[in-house]
């Protein structure tokens, strides 16, 4: 549930509780039972509801407030309907409320201060209390009939009355024994929690702890009195019972207030600054200092001037009357300054602390922005390096063709001319064979550096030509469409390196290359039916590939279960 919904639920329950209490007081007044007890009862009830609402107003207190409101509502129902003259509905409601009141109480205490139960033990205790309560009040719910039990308060049966009755007093007594046992466990649990709490947390637990021991003592005393059948102390215990309705929520409020006090206004500011986005630091600061006109000025040492959150310079020589500048930081070396109402000067420590916190938050934001910018720059520089390397490869390939290879080709023609001139045919044959080998090696080298067909014809034909030269059959599924040069080059070298790996390591009988376009991304998949088990080790070819595709803004997926072949998949962004 959101905080707003929780608050709405608290509000609804508070309204219901108040209505029940007012009805009860009015009814008791009509019954002629006005007196100090009733006044105290009415005041305590209203105050308790007010405390629950106050808890709900605190940030993070909504859930706790709901738990308090549930308990108050159940208690009010319990008090109101106990001797409602004739209503079967009221009797049914009272019996249920009376049975569940101890559980609601336990939940409220155990859930403090977060509003949630912690751990299986607490949940089990509450579940057992609910069970004991249902057994306890289940008997009168089902079997109570007026006149059947002299000591019972209601005058009508519940809506669940079965039409028969029996002496169910032992059932009630048995549940009381269970309640007392559960109560002891509850007390042990609370003592344990108090002892385990660090000193800092103990202060916040103490008010509720005291209130609970008070309430628990009263609760146990009441049951003992009831079990023993003594009438004397009942009235006194009723007073204490009513005081509890106020004491418990009040203790919770005080505990939560202690938590807030420990955090203080600066704590709130730090929490708020942690969540503050760009441009929200100054308003947060203004709220925490309590000066809506407050301005935050940051000192930029390189520029020797103050700027605001957006980086615009602030003219500190033109501060209007009634406003002053408080510098933050060591004397002569400001890190920031606050421009504020001069009446706040008495709170210099608060101003300094708040300014430092704000400075920290802004520094954080600035560093993050800087980091993001650096990362973006790193990415684009990596892409530029790869692009430059690719351009260099194309240049080297061209140079090989235009330079060395042309000279060797001319040499070939010269050798042919020599043959016509009856030179030594054996020697000539040897020279021509050497020359052809050199030319072939040169062509292979050039192709490895950057294949012409990729530039001229694109990815599909280049990959098909690559597949044609492979030692094993390779099926290629690829169209003839063109992509940006950087993408084509990256994709080509992915396939080339993958096929190279297939030939070297996979012991595959065949392989397949699929290149297609999906959702604006070029997908390249190379799979083989070899031995699998490939890993991208550092410095290896696969790692080099991963780096290359990462530079193109893509990622590489390698699936290579031992014995199940290898599939390499790369998705490259290819623009529109």
């Amino acid at each position, binding site marked *: 549930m959101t905080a707003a919904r929780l608050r709405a639920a608290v509000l609804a329950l508070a309204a219901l509780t108040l209505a029940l209490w007012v009805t009860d007081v009015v009814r008791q007044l009509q019954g002629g039972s006005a007196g100090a007890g009733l006044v105290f009862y009415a005041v305590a009830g209203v105050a308790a509801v007010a405390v629950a609402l106050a808890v709900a107003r605190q940030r993070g207190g909504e859930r706790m407030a709901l738990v308090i409101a549930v308990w108050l509502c159940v208690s009010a129902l319990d008090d109101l309907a106990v001797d409602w003259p004739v209503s079967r509905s009221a009797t049914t409601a009272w019996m249920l409320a009376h049975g569940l009141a101890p559980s609601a109480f336990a939940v409220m205490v155990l859930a403090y201060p977060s509003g949630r139960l912690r751990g299986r033990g607490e949940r089990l205790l509450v579940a057992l209390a609910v069970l004991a309560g249902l057994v306890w009040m289940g008997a009168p719910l089902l079997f109570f009939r007026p006149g059947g039990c002299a000591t019972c308060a209601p005058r009508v049966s519940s809506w669940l009355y079965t039409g028969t009755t029996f002496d169910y007093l032992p059932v009630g007594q048995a549940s009381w024994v269970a309640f007392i046992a559960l109560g002891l466990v509850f007390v042990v649990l609370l003592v344990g929690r108090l002892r385990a709490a660090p000193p800092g947390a103990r202060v916040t637990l103490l008010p509720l702890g005291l209130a609970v021991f008070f309430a628990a003592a009263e609760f146990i005393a009441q049951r003992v009195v009831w079990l023993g059948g003594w009438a004397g102390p009942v009235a006194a215990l009723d007073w204490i019972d009513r005081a509890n309705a106020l004491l418990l929520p009040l203790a919770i409020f005080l505990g939560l207030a202690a938590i807030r006090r420990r955090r203080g206004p600066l704590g709130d500011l730090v929490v708020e600054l942690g969540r503050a986005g760009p441009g929200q630091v100054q308003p947060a600061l203004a709220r925490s200092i309590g000066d809506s006109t407050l301005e935050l000025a940051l000192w930029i040492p390189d520029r020797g001037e103050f700027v605001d959150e957006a980086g615009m310079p602030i003219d500190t020589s033109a501060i209007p009357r009634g406003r002053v500048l408080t510098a933050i930081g060591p004397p002569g070396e400001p890190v920031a300054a606050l421009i504020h109402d001069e009446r706040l000067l008495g709170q210099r420590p608060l101003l300094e602390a708040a300014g430092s916190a704000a400075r920290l938050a802004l520094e954080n934001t600035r560093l993050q922005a800087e980091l993001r910018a650096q990362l973006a720059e790193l990415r684009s520089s990596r892409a530029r390096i790869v692009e430059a390397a690719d351009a260099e490869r194309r240049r080297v390939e061209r140079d090989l063709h235009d330079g060395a290879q042309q000279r060797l080709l001319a040499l070939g023609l010269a050798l042919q001319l020599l043959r016509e001139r009856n030179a030594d045919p054996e020697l000539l044959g040897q020279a021509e064979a050497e020359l052809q080998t050199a030319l072939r090696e040169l062509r292979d080298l050039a192709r490895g550096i950057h294949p012409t*067909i990729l530039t*001229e014809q694109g990815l599909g034909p280049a990959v098909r030509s690559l597949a044609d030269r492979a030692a094993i059959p390779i099926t290629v599924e690829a169209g003839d469409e063109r992509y940006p040069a950087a993408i084509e080059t990256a994709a080509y070298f992915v396939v080339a390196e993958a096929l190279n790996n297939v030939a070297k390591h996979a012991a595959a009988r065949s392989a397949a290359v699929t290149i297609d376009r999906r959702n604006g991304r070029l997908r390249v998949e190379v799979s083989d039916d070899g031995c699998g088990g490939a890993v991208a080790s550092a410095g290896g070819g696969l790692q080099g590939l991963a780096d290359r595709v990462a530079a193109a803004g893509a990622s590489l997926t390698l699936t290579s279960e031992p014995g199940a072949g290898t599939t390499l998949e790369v998705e490259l962004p290819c623009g529109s």
Partner: protein
Amino acid sequence: MLIVDDHPSFRRLATRLLREAGFAVVGEAADGDGAVREAERLCPDVVLLDVVLPDRSGLAVARELALLRDAPRVVLISSRGRSDFGDSFAWPPGCSFLPKHELTAARLRDALQHG
């Protein structure tokens, strides 16, 4: 025959080789524009045309030559091999291709007879 290649030594040696093998080499050109000019002037039967020329692609030159009144047979030559161009390479119609490292008088005759 007209020989078009931007490498002077290759051009000169090819001219000598083919002349000695009985081809009548009537002219040489070092770039695309020169090739078209010389072809118009000399009306050769055959043009030996490098695929990569400094001013424009040999393929474009081949297409232009095909439009001449007495269109010559064009044999495209390249320092790259056939597989570097791929199976789907769009060779201009009516052209043969001969890698430079396979260029001999005999291979040229083959290409002219069969291509």
